[in-house]
């Protein structure tokens, strides 16, 4: 499991370089990515559900990248896109293709469902966390305006 976390750290680091994340943010993105993967593995062990694991880990990654974006004044995407890499449903997609060739259509159905649910979980996490932060942003702006009025 520790090896897997190290794998996550280095692969997110390399993926960040491919996407040209600025040097000063490289450590943040890799830390976010490996933390996300750690949470996925923990949830998988407790709950034994890949969808639940992806959802919780995507929420954590989205939360972290929003906080980092606020404090570093950089777009949220910079931290989120590399950080989400370990959870992107590549495994599910491969299994769909594999069982399609094996003509095991029951397995195809269940893996197709899983792949879509994981993609949906990532979207849901973005929706949830971004909405919360948008709310904060509006609240901040209103307070700033009220302060100026006085």
């Amino acid at each position, binding site marked *: 499991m520790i*090896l*897997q976390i*190290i*794998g*996550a750290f*280095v*692969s997110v680091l*390399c*993926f960040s*370089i*491919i*996407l*040209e*994340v*600025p*040097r000063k*943010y490289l450590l943040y993105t890799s830390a976010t990515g490996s933390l996300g*993967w750690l949470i996925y593995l923990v949830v998988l062990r407790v709950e034994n559900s890949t969808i639940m694991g992806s959802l919780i880990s995507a929420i954590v990654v989205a939360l972290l990248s929003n906080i980092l974006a606020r404090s570093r*004044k*950089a*777009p949220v*995407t*910079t931290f*989120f*896109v*590399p950080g*989400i*890499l*370990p959870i*992107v449903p*590549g*495994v599910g*997609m*491969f*299994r*769909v*293709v*594999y069982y*399609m*060739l094996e003509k095991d259509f029951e397995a195809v159905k269940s893996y197709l469902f899983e792949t879509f649910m994981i*993609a949906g979980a*990532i*979207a849901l996490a*973005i*929706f949830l966390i*971004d*909405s919360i932060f948008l709310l904060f942003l509006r609240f901040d702006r209103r307070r700033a305006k009220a302060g100026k009025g006085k």
Partner: protein
Amino acid sequence: MDYQSLTDTAVLAGEIMLKNNAETYRCEETITHMLEAQKPGRAEAVVLTTSIVVTASDRDMHPITVVRRIKNRDTNLNRICRVNEISRRFCAGALTLNETREELMSVSRERIYRPYLVNLCLVMVSIFYTMLLGGNAIDCLNAAVCGVLMAAMTYGGSRIGLRPFIRDFCICAAIAVCACAVGRFLPVPVHLDLIIIATMMPMMPGVAVTNAARDTLQGDYMSGGARMLEAFVKALAIALGVGLGLGICGLFGWEVLL
């Protein structure tokens, strides 16, 4: 106030963002903020995934309209960050219009990592993603071979200007065959599924899914829908490629065991 060059500069900022795969609503916001910082009477920006339309007008002048068509896009987060920072400084009044323009021009060609490092990282992602999925040392070795093939094909594909769909399709077919072939020559059985998944990972449409969700959340359904379709098409290219590769292995009589 020279509205013509102001509009041109704002559109340039938006164009760089869109070309490097920023969310559409972010481009729209950047352009509008930059225009409104100089207070023309009215400024509107419409950004779709493939085009930008901006109009600025005031009482004593004709409206100025600029249209840009974006043909190809590639993800570069550094440029998005830099444009974001420059537009912030421009809006705060720390940069003049000419300085902003010059900075934007230099950002539009900026690369912070050398090409060999990026190619090396493509190989490293394959190796360490195999490790992430729980593969052993032999799996990583096999993934390294496939990763080298993938990086070489990505480089070659961009040199001869292949369409991304065809390029991803060919690469995925090649890595599936390569993984099987190398796996056959190794003395111990390998986890072929992990190796193929790890190597195809850099092509997965993670950016498209993220942007689709974020654009949809902002109420920009047109761009959100377009991005969703983009994600589907990319996933389809990968799935078809891997399918073809596994099929070829089957023809040769190489067993693909999970």
